[in-house]
Each structure stands twice: as structure tokens, then as C-alpha cells.
């Protein structure tokens, strides 16, 4: 939404002391966020008020002036150049050499009366190079053009930094600027600033210069000057004898108004009209279309001009009847951008008896639009115009936009809501301006079908709502004053501390009842100024405090893993079933549970079509991302995975994933220190450390071998806490890692774990007991036994614990050995045992007895004591 300050000033007298930057900041703070200021020739103020510095071209007051071209003479030596004799207020006339094509028609015409007014630049002025690539600055210098010295320039829009237009120089209309002295600084004539705003959906009423002017008036407490809604004198047959309106869906089309213009001359718009449209970013087309657009930018009401003769022709003998209705099955319409639309049942149409004419509130149809003159076939263009202005249900417009994928300035406004009261104002304003710029005459009367006139919204507003919701005292009179500034009506029947507030008929955003009170509180806060509301600290009592143990434990897990040297990653929670299927070697049935994916109906890319069901795929991708610059990788991720439920929201399960790959230690310069590559036991050590750090009692923790085809056979375990499986850990299957792009280097295993964190955390004891530091000396014994090579060490250890009695404090496996002199198929396991009593120093004899009992138990299980 662009608002030229010069246009804004037509509706509100902004004091000269208020700079455009200050105004912009005020609007921004009041909720009309200014994104940018486009400066036209004027300098930016030193106080920028949060507006970024601008590097636009500033017109030098001494050197960029209004010039009056008195005569165009031929150039003696060049056909493509002319000499313009310019009065710029100096002592003598200045002759300028120019190639501007729009001056050629004036060549050899002798003295021009009136003169041609144009921007004129003197030597030393800074301009944009009209012939350079992109935007390049130049300082105007004297130079010879085909033998004639030239120190000045008549300027194009591009040279002045207004637009990219450089086909000819700017010519200003004498009628508008003829009373301004040549030599006047151009910045005083055309200098301007265009405020560009990004408006939130609740500010539908501000999608026009008038709408913004109302806000400015309220913020600065200035009167608003309403546009002139009077109509020119009509003549001829009345419109009600020439056309009729039929609304079939009053809920969707509460109002439809129209008026008729005769003797229209379709031509270019006058300069002022074109200039203003250009400033707001709208390309001028012809006088009728331009007025329609102008009114939309001016007061926010879109209008549409039909060629009446085309409508009459379609109606045959009868008068045209404009019908607004839902489309028939299979109905089509060609919009004026030339596109054919199959019409969705939710779309609303403007039609006649013969068929669809336009998409209501979004875009006109090609057939019935205002026609341009065509000199070749001696066609003058449309001469009779039916102008309509209507009100539409904003949801209908939104549905039309989404089903046709069409967007327009009109749709932008209607889809946010335009009050039906604005329709008649828009119609009158349009008819008045069209008469002025096209020489038309107005047919008497207006058509105004208004089947669903909304009741005025009245809110009973208790003044103490301001204090209750905003936190400051304000007298009733001050509240009433703020609301009046915003054009709310304050009812006579206001009594006591309750104001009866009537919402003005350009607003749809204020509701009745309790919602309306909040709406008004917001209006009061905006105009009063958010900065003036005091800052306080809640006096309200604290709610009962609830500690979120589960989330606190999750943070503890993060800390433990980071302390263990792992780096946290956070992956996309999106994946694809195909990508996760890479976790299963090709051709095999997955070992993972087969659950429904949460699939996106509108995925953004082929790599992210569903919500993930595992963290492992993401972690393996992370390893690929980093493999070339980080041979050593230790990651973890905590996050959710998603299992779809047919009829309900999915299960969201919190998981912990861990991945290790590459050297156990980072490589340094001391050769030989690198302690090999990470393996299963590194991963297991991390898991054990984590569980111990969470104070889960290790006697409840078991690692059991399991078959799972994402992992190397025999190198994967399920983690059991108590008897409940809570996750997997193992060496990733070589074919799986290869499928993910991690190569097939069997010397460098990739280890991964995925645990159900919710389940793990339920095993964390709420309390734990700290053991006292022993006062009695420990006694140490080593035991080495030879067992069958395939015997699990956990079974040996369990026997030691089971037979060691309560004085056995620690069992530490310190050596596993196979080879000479241990017989083939056997292995030696060596354990360091610690015995300790809390109350006495253990004697050798007592410890030996315990040791013997352990050895006996082991031997009974088939182990042989190693000598």
C-alpha cells in the first residue's frame, strides 16, 4: 500500500513541522507498519525516526528547476537532435541540445504559446544517467553536442530518479503548472514522498489514501476533509430506464450500485491523474479505467466500468439486467487478462441474462470491459459506460481468489472487507471524476440495490475497561475524545461510566458486545500511544507452580551427553518413507515397526513429504554432511518421531539418537596416539554413562543380543531397563551405511543408538541415596577364568555378583584374552574384585573365603580357573 504525502494532504492538513519520517514512525507505532519511504527529489530528514537511510537522488534547489521551453529549433548539423530554448528564470534564455523524441512535433513551430513546462537541470546538477546501465549518477557538465555547446539539460523521469522512463523528457501540463514561475526549484513543484506500508489484515479500512488520512487525523487530532461525493448535473434518460440490478445472494452481495455515463471519450488521462497512479504503482491505461483505479486508491472502494452498448447488445431488445449469482455447473468466463476460468461453485459472478460478465470483486470479463478507440477501423471506443460499485462478502472473494488463483488490487481490498456504505461513495466519486476527465454526461439517477444493509454496530463501553485491560486511569471525556477522533459516534444515551459507541460506516473490524469492548480498548491504546501506557509488574497471584520433570530430565540427558563429548544436532522433523527405508538392506523385510506415516498433503519438496519415524536416518545424513571435513563424529539428537493414527492425532514419541563414527580420539601431531576407531563398546560406554548419570540403577540395566537388519549381525543389542526394552544400539549394517553414502569401510564402523527417551526417563528414580565414603580399607583380588569363547561375559559377571556376598563392592573386567596358551575355542576373562566392609577391616582369611566361594561357583558353571 503506497500513499503519496501530497495526496494524503488533500484529506488532512499535516503540519509542516511533521516530517515524513516522523509521520511514518507514528504510523508504524500505531500499527500501520511503514516498510519504506520512496523519496521524489526531496532530501531525507536528518532525524530518520527508524527509517533506513536513503540514497535516492535529491534535486538540487539551485540547479534542478522548472523550465519553460519557448521554442524548438532544428539542430543545424543533426537531424536527430533539436535545440530547445528554455526560460529557467535566469537573465537570458538557455539553449539546450536534446534528442527527446517528444519535442520533435514542436520543431519549427516558432515561439510556443503556452510554453512547454519541463524539469530543467543546470551545469553541476546531480542526475541519473538516462542512457547508462542500471542506476548511475552523473554530474552535469558542459559538453559539445554536434558543435553546439550545451551546459544544461531538459530531463526525463529516469534522469530525475522518478522512474525508468527515458524515452522522452517530462512535460508538465500548463493548465496545472502555468502559474508557477520558471526557475522555481523543481523540488517545490514535484517533490514528494511516497509512504509504503505493510498492512495487517485487520486494517482493511486503511487500504486507501483516505483510510490512512483518517488514521493520521486521529493520531494528530486533526480534522479530516472528506472527498467531494457530489454528482455533476445529469441529463437525458434516467439509468433506471436503461438497466436493472438483480441480486440473488444478498448474504454474499449485500449491495450493488451503478450509474450511467453517456458521450464518453476514451482517451489518455490528464497528467495529474496519471502522475498519482504512477506514484502508487499503478500503470495508467485510459481515462475511464484510470478513474476507476484512482477511486479505489483514493477511498478504498473498487468499481468496475462496463461498456453499456455491449451489455445492451447482449440483452437484445430488452434492457440489460445485471445479475449477481453463483455460477451454473460447468460455466466458464474469460477474464480481462485473457485467461479462461472454469468456475468453481464457490465463486460469485456478475452476469446478465446471457451469461457471466465478470468475477465479482476480483476481475472483470474480457467481453464487456471498456473498449479502447481503434483509429484503424474508425472506432471511437466505448461511448456509454455503466459504472458499478458493490459490496461483497469477503470470504466469497477469498474463495474466488483461491479457486481462480487470481489476484487484483480490487480483490486485495474486498478479500479483507469493504463496508457496503462505501459502495455508493465509490460510485459517486467515480462518476464525478469520469465526467471531469472524459467529457461524459451523467444519466439521471443511480441504481442502488441494498438488500442486506448491516445494522450499525453499537458497543456499550464501560470506561473502566481501559484500566482493567490497559492499566491506567483515563477520564471518560478523554476516552470519548479519542473515539471521536476515530469518527466513532458517542451516543446521547451514554450514562454514568458507560459510553454508547457507534462504529463509523467505513469499518467492519469492530464487533458488538464483549469483543467490541476489546476492539475499542485497542483503538484507545493505539491512539493514546503504546509508549504512554505505564510499565508495571503483575500484581496477580502466582498460579500453583508445577515443575515439568520430564523436560528437566531431558535437559539433564543433553548435559550428560555433551559432557561425554557428543555434539547435539537438530534435524528436520520431515523425511520420506523412501529415505527411511534405506535403513533396511535392499530386498529385506524391515525390522522396524510398520506404522502409518504422517504424510503432507502439500509437501515443499520431494525430500520432505512426511514426518519422520526415526532419528537414525537424520543422524546418518549428518555423518555424510560432515565426513569430508570431520573424520571423527559423535552426535546426538533429542526429538520427536511421529506415528500416524487413522482417526486421530498421531503419537508423538520423544527419542534419543546417538551416532559415532571415525577415530576414537581426534588426530593430533603425535603419531601413534590415535587409539583406533570407535566401536560398539564406545557406544555402549556412552549409553552406560548416560544411564548411570541419570541414577538408573545399573543392576536393572541389561543389554541383550537381538536380530535387527539395520545393524551388523551380532553387533546389536536391545537395551532393557527392568524387563522393558527401551531402544537399540549397535553397529550400523555395512549395506545400510553404504546406502546412506557413508561408504563400505569395514575398518571404520558407524555406531548408532536410538532410545525411547520417554520410557528411559520413566525409569529415572525420583530420589537417590548418596553412599558415604568408606572408612575401612578395601581388599583387592584378581580372578581369571577360562570359558567357552561364545559365553557372554555378562553371565560370568552375574555369577560373581551372585556368589560374592554383600562385601563385594566392585567387579571390573580388565582383560579378555584369546590365544596361546588358552585352548582354541576358549577365552580368558580376568576380573578385578573389590571387597569392603563398612564396619571392619577385612582379614585376608575372610576375603580368601569369599574368593573361594566365587571360584567354586564359576567352576560349577564350567569355567576353569586360570593358573
Amino acid at each position, binding site marked *: 500500500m503506497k500513499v503519496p504525502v501530497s495526496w494524503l494532504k488533500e484529506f488532512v492538513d499535516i503540519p509542516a513541522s511533521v516530517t515524513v519520517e516522523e509521520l511514518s514512525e507514528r504510523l508504524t507505532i500505531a500499527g500501520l507498519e511503514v516498510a519504506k519511504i520512496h523519496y521524489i527529489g526531496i532530501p531525507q530528514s536528518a532525524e530518520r525516526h*527508524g527509517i533506513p537511510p536513503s540514497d535516492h537522488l535529491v534535486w538540487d534547489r539551485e540547479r534542478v528547476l522548472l523550465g519553460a521551453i519557448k521554442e524548438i529549433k532544428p539542430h543545424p548539423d543533426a537531424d536527430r537532435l533539436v535545440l530547445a530554448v528554455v526560460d529557467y528564470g535566469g537573465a537570458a534564455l538557455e539553449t539546450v541540445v536534446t534528442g527527446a523524441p517528444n519535442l520533435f512535433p514542436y520543431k519549427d513551430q516558432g515561439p510556443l504559446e503556452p510554453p512547454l513546462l519541463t524539469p530543467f537541470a543546470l551545469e553541476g546538477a546531480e542526475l541519473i544517467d538516462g542512457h547508462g546501465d542500471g542506476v548511475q549518477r552523473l554530474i552535469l557538465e558542459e559538453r559539445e553536442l554536434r558543435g553546439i555547446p550545451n551546459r544544461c539539460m531538459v530531463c526525463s523521469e529516469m534522469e530525475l530518479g522518478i522512474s525508468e522512463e527515458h524515452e522522452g523528457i517530462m512535460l508538465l501540463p500548463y493548465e496545472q503548472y502555468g502559474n508557477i514561475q520558471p526557475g522555481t526549484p523543481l523540488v517545490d513543484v514535484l517533490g514528494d514522498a511516497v509512504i509504503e506500508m505493510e498492512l495487517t489484515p485487520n486494517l482493511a479500512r486503511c487500504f486507501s489514501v483516505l483510510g490512512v488520512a483518517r488514521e493520521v487525523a486521529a493520531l494528530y487530532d486533526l480534522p479530516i476533509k472528506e472527498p467531494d461525493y457530489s454528482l455533476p448535473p445529469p441529463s437525458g434518460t434516467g439509468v433506471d430506464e436503461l438497466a436493472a440490478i438483480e441480486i440473488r445472494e444478498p448474504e454474499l452481495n449485500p449491495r450493488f450500485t451503478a450509474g450511467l455515463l453517456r458521450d464518453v471519450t476514451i482517451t489518455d488521462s490528464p497528467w495529474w491523474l496519471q502522475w498519482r497512479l504512477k506514484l502508487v504503482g499503478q500503470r495508467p491505461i485510459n481515462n475511464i479505467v484510470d478513474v476507476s483505479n484512482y477511486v479505489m486508491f483514493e477511498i478504498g472502494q473498487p468499481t468496475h466500468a462496463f461498456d453499456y452498448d455491449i451489455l445492451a447488445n447482449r440483452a437484445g431488445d430488452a434492457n440489460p439486467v445485471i445479475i449477481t449469482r453463483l455460477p451454473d455447473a460447468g460455466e466458464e468466463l474469460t477474464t480481462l487478462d485473457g485467461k479462461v476460468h472454469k468456475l468453481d461453485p464457490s465463486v460469485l459472478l456478475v452476469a446478465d441474462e446471457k451469461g457471466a460478465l465478470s468475477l465479482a470483486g476480483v476481475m472483470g470479463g474480457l467481453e464487456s470491459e471498456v473498449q479502447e478507440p481503434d483509429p484503424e477501423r474508425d472506432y471511437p471506443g466505448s461511448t456509454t459506460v455503466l459504472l458499478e460499485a458493490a459490496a461483497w462478502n469477503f470470504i466469497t472473494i477469498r474463495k474466488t481468489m483461491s479457486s481462480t488463483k487470481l489476484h487484483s488490487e480490487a480483490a486485495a481490498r474486498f478479500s479483507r472487507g469493504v463496508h457496503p456504505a462505501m459502495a455508493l461513495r465509490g460510485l459517486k466519486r467515480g462518476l464525478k471524476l469520469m465526467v471531469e476527465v472524459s467529457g461524459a454526461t451523467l444519466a439521471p439517477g443511480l441504481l442502488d440495490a441494498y438488500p442486506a444493509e448491516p445494522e450499525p454496530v453499537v458497543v456499550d463501553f464501560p470506561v473502566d475497561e481501559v484500566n482493567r485491560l490497559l492499566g491506567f486511569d483515563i477520564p471518560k471525556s478523554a476516552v470519548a475524545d479519542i473515539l471521536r477522533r476515530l469518527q466513532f459516534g458517542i451516543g446521547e444515551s451514554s450514562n454514568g461510566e458507560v459510553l454508547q459507541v457507534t462504529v463509523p460506516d467505513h469499518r467492519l473490524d469492530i464487533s458488538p458486545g464483549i469483543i467490541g469492548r476489546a476492539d475499542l*480498548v485497542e483503538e484507545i491504546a493505539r491512539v493514546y500511544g503504546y509508549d504512554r501506557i505505564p510499565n508495571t509488574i*503483575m500484581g496477580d497471584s502466582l498460579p500453583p507452580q508445577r515443575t515439568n520433570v520430564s523436560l528437566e530430565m531431558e535437559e539433564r540427558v543433553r548435559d550428560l551427553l555433551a559432557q561425554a563429548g557428543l555434539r*547435539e544436532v537438530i534435524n*528436520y522433523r520431515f523425511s520420506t518413507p523412501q529415505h527411511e527405508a534405506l535403513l533396511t538392506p535392499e530386498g529385506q523385510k524391515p525390522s522396524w515397526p510398520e506404522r502409518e506415516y504422517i504424510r503432507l*498433503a502439500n509437501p515443499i519438496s520431494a525430500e520432505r513429504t512426511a514426518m519422520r519415524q526415526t532419528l537414525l536416518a537424520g543422524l546418518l545424513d549428518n555423518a555424510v554432511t560432515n565426513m569430508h571435513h570431520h573424520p571423527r563424529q559423535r552426535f546426538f539428537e533429542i526429538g520427536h518421531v511421529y506415528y500416524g493414527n487413522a482417526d486421530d492425532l498421531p503419537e508423538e514419541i520423544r527419542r534419543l539418537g546417538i551416532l559415532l563414527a571415525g577415530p576414537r580420539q581426534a588426530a593430533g*601431531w603425535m603419531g601413534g596416539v590415535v587409539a583406533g576407531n570407535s566401536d560398539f563398546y564406545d557406544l555402549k560406554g556412552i549409553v552406560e554413562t548416560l544411564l548411570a548419570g541419570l541414577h538408573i540403577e545399573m543392576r536393572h540395566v541389561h543389554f541383550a543380543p537381538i536380530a535387527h537388519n539395520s545393524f551388523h549381525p551380532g553387533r546389536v543389542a536391545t537395551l532393557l531397563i527392568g524387563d522393558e526394552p527401551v531402544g537399540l544400539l549397535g553397529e550400523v549394517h555395512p549395506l545400510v551405511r553404504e546406502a546412506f553414502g557413508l561408504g563400505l569401510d569395514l575398518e571404520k564402523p558407524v555406531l548408532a543408538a536410538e532410545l525411547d527417551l520417554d520410557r528411559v526417563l520413566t525409569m529415572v528414580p525420583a530420589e537417590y541415596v548418596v553412599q558415604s565414603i568408606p572408612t575401612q580399607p578395601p581388599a583387592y583380588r584378581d580372578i581369571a577364568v577360562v570359558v567357552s569363547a561364545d559365553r557372554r561375559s555378562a553371565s560370568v559377571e552375574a555369577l560373581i555378583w551372585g556368589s560374592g556376598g554383600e562385601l563385594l563392592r566392585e567387579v571390573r573386567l580388565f582383560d579378555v584374552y584369546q590365544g596361546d596358551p588358552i585352548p582354541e575355542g576358549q577365552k580368558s576373562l580376568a576380573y578385578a574384585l573389590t571387597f569392603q566392609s563398612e564396619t571392619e577391616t577385612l582379614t585376608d582369611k575372610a576375603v580368601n573365603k569369599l574368593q573361594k566361594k566365587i571360584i567354586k561357583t564359576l567352576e560349577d558353571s564350567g569355567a576353569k580357573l586360570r593358573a
Partner: protein
Amino acid sequence: MQEKLESIYQKALADLEAIHTSEEVKAWDSRYLGRKGEMTLILRQTGKLPPEERADFGKRANEVKNLLATALEKREALIREHELARSLEEGELDVTLPGRPLTMGGLHPSTRMLRRIKEIWADMGFQVYRSRDVEHDEYNFTLLNMPPHHPARDMQDTFYTTQPNIILRTHTSPGQIRAMHDYSEDGTRPIRVILPGMCYRYEQITARSEIQFHQVEGLAVGKGIRMSDLKGTVAEFARRLYGPDTEVRYRASYFPFTEPSMEVDVKCHICGGQGCPVCKRTGWIEIMGSGMVHPEVLRNGGYDPTEWSGFAFGMGPERIIMNKNRIEDIRYFWANDLRFLEQY
């Protein structure tokens, strides 16, 4: 014997003079003074002397032994001194060689910022409430005063699932409704919670926009909560996050689920408000959206909006990190490149 004693004595002294290392000292000690050393052996032979010579010999032998022990001590001290001096002299390392590498673990920057934010709010009595990622359309929009086709739905491009009315939440705000349902006890209890979590938007992934990002939503509902409290509370938050002198600006804005709505900006901490690329040369950085809970939302949460009021706010940890650490590309966050993560 006497002569032999003197000859051992002289030999021992001579040998001692030739000794330069601690190992040699030990060998000398054991050769002359040890259990099987020459002095020990000769002393044992005292008994073989005629009785009248024994006393003199014994006396002299003990004297020699003591002299040798003293000489040894001196020599030892001298050698230790030399050895220490040599060690100090020769023990130079190339201190410019790199240290042994140690690989630290660490937390993702988003986690770190989330923790910081949570801590600040926890100090002010806000507790963490986790709400789900995959949501009903109703909770994400309708109950937050955005019925179907509401224009504000355009502000949040949504990922839809193949299940009707089930979407990925576009903001953490649906958690407001869930927290009110869980904690308000039918609209009779006040609430103060924050709701951190991942949100999802249907957008092209670019340096400036992502399809998933964290949000931290806050909600306070009570019987006397006012916009002035919101201002005071967020100002306190801003000062704790950005420093005690942080200047805060409040702008009117629009969110369907709050009214009045308010954007909170802080004076750019990089340029001090002069204008720099971080603040897009405006001097201000937007840190959160906020407002008074809309009466419709209070009602949907089970409260009577004529008696209860509240405020809500929402902020994006990744945006805060980007501004603080001048990260230009939001895609860094989920790319998990260690060259990024290891800077935290």
C-alpha cells in the same frame, strides 16, 4: 688390614670423584657401603685381628665408613644439583607445537537459546508446558479466533496432512488453548506458562525463511492482568536477554488471538540504533509479538472474559540467535554442519 682399609678408603674416594650420575651413586654405595660392600666386609674381619689391634682398627674403620658416607652425601647432592641443572637446561619443549586435541561435546545453539529464554521466564514464574507438533486445524486456527477463510490465515502458510483437519502447527499458540484446558480448572485458576516448541510453515527454504523453526510462546491469565503488566514483563525479559540498558519500543500490531496486539522491538545492540545490516538499518530489532489475550480465546480456554484477562507473547529463538551472532543464513540451523555447530 690397616693398609687394606686405607687403600679401600683411597680407592673409594677416587671412585666417588669419577661418579656423575645417580645410578653410579647407587652402585658406589652398594659396592663400598652396602650390605655386601667392601667396608662392611672389612669391618666384619676385625675379629681376625690380634686383640690389641682391634680397637684401633675398629675405630679407624668406623671413622672411614663415616667419612665415606659423608663424602657420598656431598657427592650425591652435587650430582642431583647437576642433574637438575641439566634437566632444566635441556628440557626445553617447542611450546608453539599444538596441544593434544580434545573434542568437546556441546549443545545446539537453538537449545542453548531456548534454555536461556526458559530460565528468564522461569524466574518470573512461568513454567514450561509442552504441546504437540501435529495439531487439529481447530486448535491451530479456529479456537484462536481464526475461523476458516479468516484473512489472518494467509499470514501463516500451512502444511496440511493427508488426514482432514490435521495440520502441522504453524505457531505454538494452539498450546495456549491446551494449557488453559489442562490448567485452568474450568476457568477458576490463573496460569503462567511458556510453551517452547517446533513450528512449521509452508515456505520456500531460503537464507531468510525455513519450513521449521522454534517458537517460545508465553501465556499469563489472571484476574487483574493488564497491558501495562505485559509491557513491564516483556521489558524485564528484554533487559535480561539483551542487557540492563536495553531500550524497548512497543508497536501496535495484529494477531487474531490477541487484542490489543503489540510488537516489541529493542534498540539494536549491534549499532546502538544508528542503523546497521542486522537491524536492516532501522535501529530496531523486532524480538516478539504479543498482546492481551482476545476475549474469544479466553472463552475458548474456559474463562469468563469479563472477569479474567491475560497476555500472550511469542518469540523465535533462531531469529534472536541470528541477530546476536550475525548469522545471515537460517539454513545453518538444521544443516548440522560441524563447522557451524562447533562455534558454539
